[in-house]
């Protein structure tokens, strides 16, 4: 039973990363109509950013949690300003191709400097150790990752679905011309949205650094799983992305316990099944 709970926890943690990443993808997709293929690379940059902050600047985990998403988010906004905005209005396959190229560049540069092996990032002192819950031993850091990402996800949902800023954002997604006529700077809003989505990816990167180490290709595999999560959940709603992300992480964890051989493929198999039954995805709108 211990092993089952442990795998469930691992599943919940992976689910947090899936949720944060697919949430960022959904936010970006909503405003820019781009599937951000560079999302995995930016997730990796978040982890590296935390690593640099600690080893070069002596800045600890807690500040990294705040600073890394901001730094990588600004980097993302520069990308949006210098490149992505030029392909707005073209077929969105071009967005996919452009961001794929960006991912190659970013991952390639990091690979050249840091090889493919992992760099260690220590768990912050305050979150070391674990506690005995009676039925299982819970490492504090792992519990923290799940709760913190859940809070961030819900805060993002609140920002977009329940605030005035979010209302502008949703309106601009529906009809940018009309929103611009109301005197709202839509291009700036698009840039900020991209920054927000990228920041969520970087935050996931910082959270994963102490668990998965810091590796140049850490985003390459996860992004494809996240794409499968997106296909399963659809991009219809923010909440849909969050729930699907966590759910699939848990299913993956359970598979690792009951039938480990399929743990790498279960999300893709689920994707196939969902496509056969409900092509638009669980919460999706028609593309």
């Amino acid at each position: 039973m211990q092993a089952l709970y442990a795998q469930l926890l691992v599943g919940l943690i992976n689910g947090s990363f899936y949720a944060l990443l697919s949430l960022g993808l959904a936010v970006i997709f909503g405003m820019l109509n781009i599937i951000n293929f560079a999302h995995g690379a930016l997730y990796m940059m978040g982890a590296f950013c935390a690593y640099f902050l600690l080893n070069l600047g002596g800045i600890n985990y807690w500040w990294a949690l705040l600073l890394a998403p901001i730094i990588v988010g600004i980097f993302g906004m520069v990308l949006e300003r210098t490149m992505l905005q030029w392909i707005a209005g073209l077929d969105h396959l071009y967005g996919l191709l452009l961001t794929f190229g960006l991912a190659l560049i970013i991952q390639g540069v990091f690979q050249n400097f840091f090889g493919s092996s992992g760099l260690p990032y220590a768990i912050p002192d305050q979150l070391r150790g674990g506690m005995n819950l009676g039925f299982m031993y819970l490492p504090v850091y792992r519990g923290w990752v799940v709760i913190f990402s859940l809070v961030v996800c819900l805060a993002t949902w609140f920002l977009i679905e329940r605030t005035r800023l979010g209302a502008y954002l949703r309106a601009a997604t529906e009809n940018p011309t009309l929103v611009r006529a109301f005197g709202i700077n839509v291009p700036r809003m698009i840039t900020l949205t991209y920054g927000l989505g990228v920041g969520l990816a970087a935050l996931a990167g910082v959270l994963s650094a102490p668990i998965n180490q810091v590796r140049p290709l850490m985003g390459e595999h996860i992004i494809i799983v996240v794409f499968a999560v997106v296909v399963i959940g659809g991009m219809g709603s923010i909440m849909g992305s969050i729930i699907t992300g966590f759910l699939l992480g848990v299913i993956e964890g359970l598979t690792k316990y009951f039938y480990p051989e399929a743990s790498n493929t279960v999300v893709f198999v689920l994707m196939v099944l969902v496509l056969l039954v409900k092509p638009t995805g669980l919460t999706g709108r028609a593309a």
Partner: protein
Amino acid sequence: MTSITDATLPITPRAMRDEMIVFVIMTALLAIVPWTGLYPFFVMQALCFALLACAFNLLIGYGGLLSFGHAMFLGTAGYCSAHALKVWGLPPELGILTGVAGSFVLSVITGYISIRRQGIYFAMITLALSQLLYFIYLQAPFTHGEDGIQGIPQGRMFGILDLSKPTVLYYVVLVGFLAGFLLIFRTINSPFGEVLKSIRENEQRAISLGYKTDHYKLLAFILSGTLAGLAGALKVFVAQNASLTDVEVGMSGQIVLMTLVGGLGTVFGPVVGAFVIVGMQQYLSGFGQWVTVIQGVIFVACVLTFRRGVVGEIAHLFKRSL
């Protein structure tokens, strides 16, 4: 929404004539390769990728479907052929047939699943399916995991053509490429190809005209996947191995890159693009890992400033269909 490729010129006698002339020139150039100083292994490899890119281009250039998992057909056909040749000891012609059959079956299944969504979703689904296959091949015993299937016998084709001789192998690969190329060429200049183009331009309208567009897209997917498999089967004889690198996401990206560099939706673009990218890997191999970065830069540059690709730009300049 604008379509991903420039509206290709309608089939006119002139367009057909231009394409025929270029085809004859291309065939003549490729036929004399063994008598030039060119490294035949390089040209053979480029020809396999050229066929692969042409097959990929049939989907995106004429059907508007961006498959990001086309490496799965290359890899699957490669594994099937390699297994048939090495373990079953089949002669080369049947080995190729086994590979093509494998990619055909795979394309029927994956096509049926993936055409259920369009645009970027289609791209993500094909990507995820190819990753699914990657993990299956990683764990399946017959692929030998990370090692791949190595030391594949080349054998004698039809009992007479000794494929271990580079010149003979070269012409066999060339014939395979030309056969695949002509089939694609015939397809895009047929009524079927016209319907595909109309789906790319405006699927809703094609539906309202009474076309079963899913049916056409599935057929195009199967044709594209099967021909990509032919490329994979031929590649087994050139490289004498079948490995996981042929199924990886990176390989799918390279196929997209080749087509993008040459020109999406042009007849000869993928061929040019394949030669450019394979040549680049050959001559830039000294840069090691930086080749990935260079490829990324080319990707970005193509999308931002050079969307027509090499052949597309030339065709646009001379207002010809190429």
